[in-house]
């Protein structure tokens, strides 16, 4: 019956309109934030992207990217960047895993107290922390004084304005980014599993490596990824603690702008950095199914 078919679709248009209105209202609530992000991130970064493909004559060209292949300094910069990022991530894992494990074993209340030691650096200006390491590590700094006093070495060792200082400072700054997700993942591990393993006769060591460690992997991968990606684009700490000897991509970008005012070259370098970051993120999320670990925490 045609009449009944008509009544079956009663109010369909009005309902659709209402639905659309609701969705647009909700989008409207997100709009101010979107405007800011578009203005500060999307347009400027898009603009850099455009600039990176402009040659000296203002025409489209790949010369900025070709430069990267031609000059060895670029290759060295990329090498340094990856080297620093990988080493920092490894140091963070080596130091952060035992710490997170220790914290995860404690009762919540006490863990919360000790967690302050991780959170405090997290909340403190990274400039202040970088400065503190500069003071600690310098030639006549506390560490050298202390080491000489207890006879670890005889004359002051150069600990800063080089790779060593950079790595120490970076690891300290990045550690919370690894420990927090790792701790969360460890807290989610079902304690009954470990108990069951030990009841079934597994030694504590075996139970740890065969059960606990694999289950803590998602948190560790998520944390390492955050650390690695943050390291790739890091600027302040290498610039201060590296003392001009550790040139990372971000450092070189500013150097190009300050010395040559070459926006094309700086932009191209920035674009490569961004692409590398995104590739790492995509690759890792494909490999480890990171969606939930990265966005589902908390």
């Amino acid at each position, binding site marked *: 019956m045609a009449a009944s078919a008509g009544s079956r679709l*009663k*109010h*369909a248009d009005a309902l*659709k309109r209402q*639905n659309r209105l609701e969705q647009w209202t909700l989008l409207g609530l997100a709009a101010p934030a979107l405007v800011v992000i578009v203005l500060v991130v999307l347009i400027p970064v898009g603009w850099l992207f455009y600039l990176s493909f402009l040659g000296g004559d203002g025409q489209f060209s790949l010369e900025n990217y070709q430069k990267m292949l031609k000059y060895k300094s670029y290759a060295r910069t990329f090498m340094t960047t990856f080297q620093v990022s990988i080493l920092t991530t490894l140091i963070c894992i080596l130091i952060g895993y035992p710490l997170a494990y220790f914290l995860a074993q404690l009762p919540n209340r006490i863990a919360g107290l000790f967690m302050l030691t991780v959170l405090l650096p997290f909340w403190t200006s990274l400039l202040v922390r970088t400065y503190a390491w500069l003071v600690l590590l310098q030639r006549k700094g506390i560490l050298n004084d202390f080491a000489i006093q207890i006879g670890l070495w005889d004359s002051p060792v150069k600990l800063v304005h080089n790779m060593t200082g950079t790595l120490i400072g970076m690891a300290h700054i990045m550690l919370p980014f690894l420990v927090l997700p790792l701790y969360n993942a460890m807290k989610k591990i079902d304690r009954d599993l470990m108990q069951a393993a030990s009841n079934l006769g597994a030694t504590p060591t075996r139970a740890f490596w065969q059960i606990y460690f694999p289950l803590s992997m998602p948190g560790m991968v998520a944390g390492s990824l955050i650390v690695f990606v943050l390291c790739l684009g890091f600027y302040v700490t290498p610039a201060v603690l590296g003392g001009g000897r550790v040139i990372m991509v971000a450092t070189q970008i500013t150097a190009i702008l300050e010395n040559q005012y070459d926006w094309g070259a700086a932009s191209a370098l920035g674009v490569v950095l961004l692409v590398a970051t995104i590739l790492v993120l995509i690759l890792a999320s494909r490999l480890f199914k990171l969606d939930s670990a990265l966005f589902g925490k908390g």
Partner: protein
Amino acid sequence: MSLDHSSDSALPIKISGLTKKYGDMYALDAVDLDIKSGEFLTLLGPSGSGKTTLLMAIAGFNRPDAGSIRFADQEMILYPPHRREVGMVFQSYALFPHMTVAENIAFPLKLRKVSVEECALRVEEALQTVQLDGLGARNIDQLSGGQRQRVALARAFVFRPRILLMDEPLSALDKKLRERMQIELKQLHRQLGVTTVYVTHDQREALTMSDRIAVINHGKLVQVDTPEAIYNAPANAFVADFIGESTLLPLSLGGGDQLYFGDQSIATVQAAVSAQGGTENNQGWSLVVRPERLLVLDKNSSSSQPLINGFAFDGIVFGGTIRESVFQGESAFLIVALASGADSSGVDVAVRFSTGKAANIESLANGQQIELGLHREDVIVIPQEAD
């Protein structure tokens, strides 16, 4: 002043052509449903059947794709929830933890700008109705599960809504409390007289509380009727299976108009068709056997006439072998493999009976031959599912 403001505030609900699609799946498939003024109607179905979607559509939280929802003569489908004047109780209770019990209950009154004095009066009255007198100053986290349930209820009716909606409100309670609350809710409904739509997946709860039950599956209403009618005359295998326990015995069409199980004549096709409201069916028919409707017949009756407790039994008789007997306190049940004549695969049926001394359970051992009887009045024949 009494809370009995029933007759003037209850409203009938008329739902027609209500449709909601998620992707390719219909959550509601052109649902038509008339809910009478003051009625307690339960939407019953398995999870994902669309019962909650339907309830949320009535409340205004779920916007359907098309259709109509009328409260009396007024079309409500385009109204936002806050203008529908519908009291609602959620599964999670959704009490406001940052307010006291009294503040929770006063919330809808404050929104309606009820004077402070009247507000206090009505909150107190509502607390009395749900037997929480004197607990108004409590915080929510000081209440037990059952008390929270009552606060949620009081908050939902204190502003005298014309319709009360409840989404599995008892599912978080333990069994004893749940059964007590079922009776209390029913009494409260009678007192308030407000049209009530109740969602549950628990068929017992639906049978206990409802004036009528609307069985819903795959977004479609399967059967809407009184609890007795739904239980005694299920419309199809889904309803028969979902409400109460049952076993379906496939019937074969024998000579003339007769439907047979084995060599037992069960019913006529004509009777089956008329019981189904005249629906023609060419998929075949099944017999619905409820465990408590089967009777254990006397053993070793020397006469050819079957006996029950020494009296003649002239209903349908099934022969079978006991596979398992289970004692459960107030009742016991047997699992019996029927010796069906037609196909040798055999069908297991359950038989439930109350455990008096007379039942003599010890004599019903596994492996024993047994005869089961079914009164002709208890015969329920339904069309077979097309699958």
